[in-house]
């Protein structure tokens, strides 16, 4: 799962759970059945689990583009020079 996929998964999870909770409460209250509220919410949680927990292709649409290894070789990591080291040690 890529970065944007993770963000989407978290937001989708929160929105789905809240929406199912509201829907469950309203149906339960109108029908007058506490059990129905629990069942509707439980169904919503199962649906949310199936939607947001597996690593669906939907969450992998924005893969990170790493630099080629050859590109890294052209710009080598800057080496620590001896003068900098001396300055640091002299301060101490």
């Amino acid at each position, binding site marked *: 799962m890529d970065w944007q996929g*993770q963000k989407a998964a978290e937001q989708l*999870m929160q929105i789905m759970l809240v929406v199912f*909770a509201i829907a469950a409460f309203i149906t339960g209250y109108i029908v007058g059945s*506490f059990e129905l509220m629990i069942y509707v*919410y439980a169904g919503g*949680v199962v649906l949310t689990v199936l939607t*947001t927990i597996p690593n669906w292709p939907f969450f992998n649409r924005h893969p990170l583009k790493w630099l080629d290894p050859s590109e890294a070789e052209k710009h080598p990591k800057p080496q620590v020079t001896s003068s900098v080291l001396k300055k640091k040690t002299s301060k101490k």
Partner: protein
Amino acid sequence: MHSFGFRANALLTFSLTILALMCAIASLSDNFNSPSPTATVQILSVNRFQRKSSGDDEVGFTLDISADLQSLFTWNTKQVFAFLAAEYSTPKNSLNQVSLWDGIIPAKENAKFSIKTKNKYKFIDQGSNLRGRDFNMTLHWHVMPKTGKMFADKLVLPGFRLPESYR
């Protein structure tokens, strides 16, 4: 949210938090219910009225208890416990409560009832104060919810009087 386990954990925690919130709101919704229960109690006969060897008065009744407690039930009600108590005052105790009958009402369909019964529990006074005693029949009830706060209330039915002499 990078791994399967992390997502499962986040979902479980959040869904249970919301479930607790739903239960709390369901409990709060009980406050919108303003019940209007009715009850009547009749003493059909005084079967027994005597002084026990211990010196305490004992009464045996046959009662007709009719009540409509259907309005106590909401969508968040598991059951209602109701009990009938004789309440009176004596020189020694300002309030005596003697439970005569009780029952558990499991559903709204059973909440409207009319029964003829002998007193389920013995009506015994602490002492010998029951002759000619005025007393109230009080129907108490406890509404047991599925989640949240338990409600209790009562209905006082005044105007009962015990016989002047033992029989």
